[in-house]
């Protein structure tokens, strides 16, 4: 027998099973894209998610996957809402998420997203996730997905992805 209205904390915990389809090592909590979970007065579960990028093609899959987890756990009355504000920022990415990225060879975001210097041509140091060298250079601002840039390490010569700061 499943509890008809489980505690919010338990539901948050279920979200760890929902992967980012583009970087499956991360779950939606690592990314910080689940913004709120609450029971409405009518006992409808309301979940708000926010896209990393406006055109992120993974959002639809993530929404479907969240729905599946809820249904597996016996929740049939739920509503998943996409919100734009406040805008997602890499600052919301968990420490665990950053570590996981590093472990699979993707350099995690560095610095704070509000830094306007970038627009003025300022370049941040991105550490090579393979050998740890700081002698790296950007090949392209846009990598295999909108959220990543393409870098090369001048020390070990390996190319790598960097999760950019937004």
């Amino acid at each position, binding site marked *: 027998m499943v509890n008809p209205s489980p505690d919010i904390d338990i539901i948050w915990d279920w979200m760890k099973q929902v992967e980012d389809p583009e970087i499956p090592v991360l779950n939606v909590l690592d990314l910080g894209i689940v913004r709120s979970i609450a029971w409405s007065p009518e006992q409808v579960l309301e979940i708000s998610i926010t*896209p990393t*990028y*406006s*055109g*992120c*093609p993974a959002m639809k899959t993530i929404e479907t996957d969240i729905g599946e987890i809820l249904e597996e756990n016996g929740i049939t009355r739920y509503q998943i809402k996409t*919100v*734009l*504000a*406040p*805008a*997602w*920022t890499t600052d919301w990415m968990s420490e665990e998420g950053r570590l996981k990225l590093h472990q699979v060879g993707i350099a995690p975001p560095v610095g704070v*997203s509000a830094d306007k210097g*970038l*627009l003025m*041509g300022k370049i941040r140091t991105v550490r090579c996730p393979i050998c740890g060298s700081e002698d790296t250079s950007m*090949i*392209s*601002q*846009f*990598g*295999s*997905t*909108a959220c990543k840039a*393409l870098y090369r390490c001048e020390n070990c010569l390996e190319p790598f992805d960097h999760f*950019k700061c*937004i």
Partner: protein
Amino acid sequence: MQKELFDYILRLADNSLIHGQRLAEWCGHGPVLEEDIALSNTALDFIGQATNLYKYAAELEGQDRDEDQIAFLRDADAYFNLILLEQPNGDYAFTMARQFLFTMWYYLVLEQLTNSKDSFLSGFAQKSIKEVKYHVIHSRDWILRMGDGTEESHQRIQSAFDSIWEYTPEMFEMDDLEKQMSEQGIGVDLLALRPTWRSQVEAVLQEATLTTPADAWGHSGGKRGRHSEHLGFILADMQYLQRAYPGAKW
């Protein structure tokens, strides 16, 4: 329904969609793989932004249309994008010049819209400006690289700016709708942005050893549905599937 706000949202949405559609034409044709990927990513950002705006427009309209119907079932005279954005891609220099001039302007517009009294628009702007920042950086890098590059790249990017310049005045045009939206604190006073835009553009062009063209006559009409012959071809390509198979879904 707030007809004015609806029309204003369509102007922004159509800019994003038509620009995204043009950039997407580079997919599979980029000069190098990294640029192919960069432009496809950029196109995706703009089409995503357009989707968000059309959804809001559909909500304002309160009828049975969704974002896809608004995008795919309107004819050219009901599209309100800037004429600049429907111009054919040309060579990579032309595409980058258009990208640079437009995103420099759009960044300033979004910066103002973050303070919009319309809460959707302000949230939309806070989200989108982060993406447009990267579009500005990407195109500016190319302006510098081509302007201060070889003789041929210099000549190509200079002639791109020379031929595209006459499409820029429309960006700052304040017609009745723009004025009304600006006065209500929803929209933006575009004229006030012009000096900043001009000096920022000039600074980059100067660094790229390029000459900023002089302001002169400019095209107008896109905001009111009067377009160049190119928009019809874009729509024919983009809308074909929904026109031939109404309601088709992935």
